[in-house]
């Protein structure tokens, strides 16, 4: 931790900090044990994997918007490049780890080159122009993905096989009877391996980012966010630092894209490139708390649970209140977006710096 939190004044753990760590610990335990806790619940495992991937994506966006004060709308573009690179290679080369490696590397390389270009060309200009440039780049990429249908599958996207190792037929361990071994009643097959591939990759990437923000580099990024002029005046090349972190975040987003492509066995504009995902990322980072890293975990989990389970919850509530006037209509699952909107408004009202940001007393981004 930084000197700030290691100092006596901060050594005692205030209640807010405890709450945040407790929430994250619970989420961590659930994600670690997801294949066992959610055995047989295909949708549940799917949500867990999506949470792992989006934590990486949102945390990498937090490096930009929360730590450095860079507003970019191109984050899904980098995510999509990683996903499409992997998807195209798996489609063309057949299901194998070499395809994932080659396609993923190509996607990451494209993301890096684009990030360098966008960064060097436009990080000197005012924040609003930079945001516009990223918006334009992301729009172009979206159009390209839909139009170059020979390569990308157009609007339909690409469906492909992933390495056999990740298929349900793969036995990670065999029992005495030659059948797949089970642990707590869960067969240790390729699906479990795939989940842990996604989980561990996401965990490593997240820890790398935590390390970055706690390093001297992280403090420089915050200094640039807080006061660009003074950071420059004490000797930091602001444009160089901004470009570097923009590239780093792009690479991490592309890596998250690889995980998404492998998990979904599908890559399409809606799934990995759309502006709807960009808005999700923005909401997640705001709800979790900008400039906190750990907020990414909380924001992603809240958003994902709301997106995937709010309808179910409302259906149950509507059924339970079917005898009452008006109430069941209000709770009709078709109106889930209304309630999601209300939830956001309440969250932002009570946690103006995001959940982690407010509870940690960080004050978030000004």
């Amino acid at each position, binding site marked *: 931790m930084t000197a*700030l939190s290691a100092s006596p004044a901060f050594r005692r753990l205030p209640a807010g900090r405890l709450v945040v760590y407790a929430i994250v610990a619970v989420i961590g335990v659930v994600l670690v044990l997801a294949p066992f806790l959610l055995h047989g619940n295909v949708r549940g495992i799917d949500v867990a994997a999506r949470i792992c991937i989006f934590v990486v994506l949102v945390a990498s966006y937090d490096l930009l918007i929360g730590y450095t004060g860079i507003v970019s709308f191109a984050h899904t573009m980098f995510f999509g490049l990683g996903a499409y690179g992997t998807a195209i290679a798996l489609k063309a080369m057949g299901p194998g780890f070499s395809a994932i490696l080659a396609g993923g590397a190509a996607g990451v390389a494209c993301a890096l080159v684009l990030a360098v270009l966008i960064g060097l060309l436009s990080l000197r200009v005012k924040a609003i122009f930079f945001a516009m440039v990223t918006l334009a780049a992301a729009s172009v990429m979206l159009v390209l993905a839909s139009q170059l249908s020979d390569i990308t599958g157009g609007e339909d996207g690409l469906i492909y096989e992933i390495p056999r190792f990740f298929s349900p037929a793969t036995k990670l361990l065999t029992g005495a009877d030659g059948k797949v071994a089970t642990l707590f009643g869960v067969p240790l097959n390729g699906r479990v391996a795939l989940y842990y591939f996604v989980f561990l990759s996401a965990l490593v990437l997240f820890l790398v980012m935590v390390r970055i923000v706690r390093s001297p580099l992280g*403090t420089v990024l915050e200094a640039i966010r807080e006061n660009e002029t003074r950071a420059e005046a004490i*000797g930091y090349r602001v444009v160089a630092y901004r470009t570097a972190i923009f590239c780093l975040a792009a690479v991490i987003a592309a890596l998250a894209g690889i995980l998404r492509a492998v998990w979904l066995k599908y890559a399409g504009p809606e799934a990995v490139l759309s502006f709807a995902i960009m808005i999700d990322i923005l909401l997640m980072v705001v709800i979790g708390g900008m400039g906190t890293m750990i907020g990414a975990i909380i924001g992603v989990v809240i958003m994902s649970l709301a997106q995937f389970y709010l309808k179910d919850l409302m259906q149950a509530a509507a059924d339970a209140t079917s005898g009452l006037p008006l109430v069941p209509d209000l709770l009709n699952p078709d109106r889930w977006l209304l309630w999601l909107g209300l939830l956001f408004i309440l969250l932002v009202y009570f946690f103006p710096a995001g959940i982690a940001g407010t509870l940690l007393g960080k004050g978030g981004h000004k």
Partner: protein
Amino acid sequence: MSPSLRTEDLTIRFGGHAAVNGVTCAFRPGELTVIVGPNGAGKTTWFNLVSGQLAPTAGRIFKGEADITRLSPSARAKAGIGRAFQLTNLFPKLSVLENVRLAVQAREGIGPRLFRPASSFPRLAEEAREHLARTRLSDVADYPAAALPHGDQRKLEVALLMAMQPDIYMFDEPTAGMSVDEAPVILELIAEIKRDRSKTILLVEHKMDVVRALADRIVVLHNGELIADGLPDAVMALPLVREIYLGIGAEEAA
């Protein structure tokens, strides 16, 4: 001794208005120059030109023999030009210690070890703490800079400059708004840098007692132009200076 800093015909125009107009002067190591002039004389603008926040319309700036006119502010900081700002200009949400540590880190560089935890660079924090002790800010090291009272923020502003360890120290009204108890801490620090004899110090200051106590030389700016430059007693005695700068002083003299 050859000059450590020199501006040559330095000019900046905003539209038709020349905020700094053809200022040529040179400064030597070990010399403390006070820059005086009424509000709007171009003192802070001239500072901004030297430290790189503004680019001149015409003229050149030299650090030693090197032409630094086109260098970015960060490159000038690396070249040894350090500046404290008139309006407090800190990293408000970072702790006081982190503020100073950033300045030490910028000077020292941490090279390839960039990704190691900040706590594995104890030397940086140690040096930052020394600067805080010198500016009497040790007690508030862990507070966010924004939480400090005005006087302490001014001191932190100076602490950042000290941490840069430049060859050229530029102070822009360092004691403005400070209480009578606090100002001497800063003035004593400036006197200490002056005793080093190898540093060039530029000081924008209005308080005449400060000017008299510290100045080796006084430069007078008026309407963006350098109108007087010399030993304190000689400059302060000039009728023109008494008239435009001291105002009342001229009447007293009459």
